[in-house]
């Protein structure tokens, strides 16, 4: 058992193997435990608390492939103090990690159904492990589609994954950006518009949505317009976190603690809270 699983409040030291730049403000860290042994197993949608000693911590989703043995992977967008410090860590550097925490995407429960993944911006990071899992078990699902929106073409993440996924005949991948210069030949417009053009069986479809809250609200509207049931729509919510195990109340969201009741919620669990100014 890894140390962090033994005591969920104690970060375990991890060594950075690679710090790869994805875009001007997003990077991916590959890490492995300093003490020999495997990284803990995780489910798609779960997150870790990443520590920079002396600076603080941040909740970051695991963005790697849970079906393969590979270093623990996190894709991080520079926001403030901690993420800026994480960006500076060089290969060989050490950081602290606690986790994995949280309720994952219902990937197993979605077997036998069509699955739509709707991602906005950095929201593709928590959805990527779900996509890897769906593809590793492709024959267990109906149609699979990814709708991914970003700010500009320069902000698109995981270009080689996108290219590979686009080349498959058993997967629909639609990408749209909010604005683009003239040399971009892809789609421009809000990501919700892509949903209307997808083909799926609304009575047998599960939708996994991750992105800024307002984008998720508009996506839900569009999914419901397309007759997907509230109980089949799942959202990954974000709030500032501290303990990540339901002790401190930092991440409270109405009656829920996002760290332990989420971050993935069924839409009807959070429906009344979405869009409220202060919850």
């Amino acid at each position: 058992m890894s140390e962090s699983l033994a005591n969920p409040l104690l970060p375990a030291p991890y060594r950075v193997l690679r710090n790869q730049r994805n875009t001007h403000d997003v990077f991916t860290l590959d890490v492995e435990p300093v003490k020999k042994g495997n990284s803990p197993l995780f489910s798609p949608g779960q997150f870790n608390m990443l520590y920079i000693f002396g600076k603080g911590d941040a909740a970051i989703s695991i963005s790697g492939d849970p079906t393969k043995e590979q270093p623990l992977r996190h894709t991080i967008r520079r926001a403030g103090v901690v993420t800026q410090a994480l960006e500076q860590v060089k290969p060989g550097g050490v950081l602290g990690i606690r986790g994995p925490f949280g309720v994952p995407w219902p990937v197993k429960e979605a077997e036998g159904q069509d699955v739509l993944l709707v991602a906005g911006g950095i929201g593709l990071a928590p959805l990527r492990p779900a996509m890897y899992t769906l593809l590793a078990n492709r024959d267990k699902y109906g149609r699979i589609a990814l709708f991914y929106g970003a700010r500009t073409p320069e902000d698109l993440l995981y270009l080689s994954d996108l290219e590979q996924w686009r080349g498959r005949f058993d997967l629909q991948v639609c990408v749209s950006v909010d604005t683009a210069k003239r040399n971009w030949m892809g789609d421009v417009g809000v990501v919700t518009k892509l949903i209307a053009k997808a083909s799926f069986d609304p009575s047998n479809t599960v939708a996994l949505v991750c992105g800024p809250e307002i984008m998720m609200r508009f996506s839900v509207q569009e999914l419901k317009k397309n007759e997907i049931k509230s109980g089949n729509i799942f959202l990954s919510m974000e709030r500032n976190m501290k303990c990540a195990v339901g002790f401190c109340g930092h991440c409270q969201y109405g009656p829920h603690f996002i760290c332990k009741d989420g971050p993935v919620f069924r839409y009807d669990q959070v429906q009344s809270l979405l869009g409220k100014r202060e919850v």
Partner: protein
Amino acid sequence: MELLEKILVQHPFLKDLEQKYVQLMVGCASNVRFDSGTFIYREGDEANYFYILRAGKVALEIHDGGRETITIETLGEGDVLGWAWLVPPYRRHADAQALELTRAIALDGKCLRDKCRDDHNLGYELMMRIVPLITHQLQATQLQLMDVYGVKK
């Protein structure tokens, strides 16, 4: 004419429109195609037509004098291009450029406005289809202005 009617009936924009109205619209419709790179219209042009897109891709672009041109939306099969024909002063708000070979049914705005004036029910039906397009574009613009994918300050 029969072919035009068939295409119009099948297009999502005219879903469930009574046949007599589709037939009225056929009187204002023509088949058009634009090669890749063609400007279908430019900002400020008179909005004489709107287009029911059948295939291809069109970019709506805006520019600010010398600065670079920005694409604000792309449209394709199943979409409708241009609503300015219905709203005075009937002028285009952006450039529309075909990004690839694009096929469409062009509807003569002036001809349609006359028909709507003669038959308010047709006007109502068209309004009920055009207003959601305008609302959609307004919402999309709001989201784009909010820069939802930017880091919260």
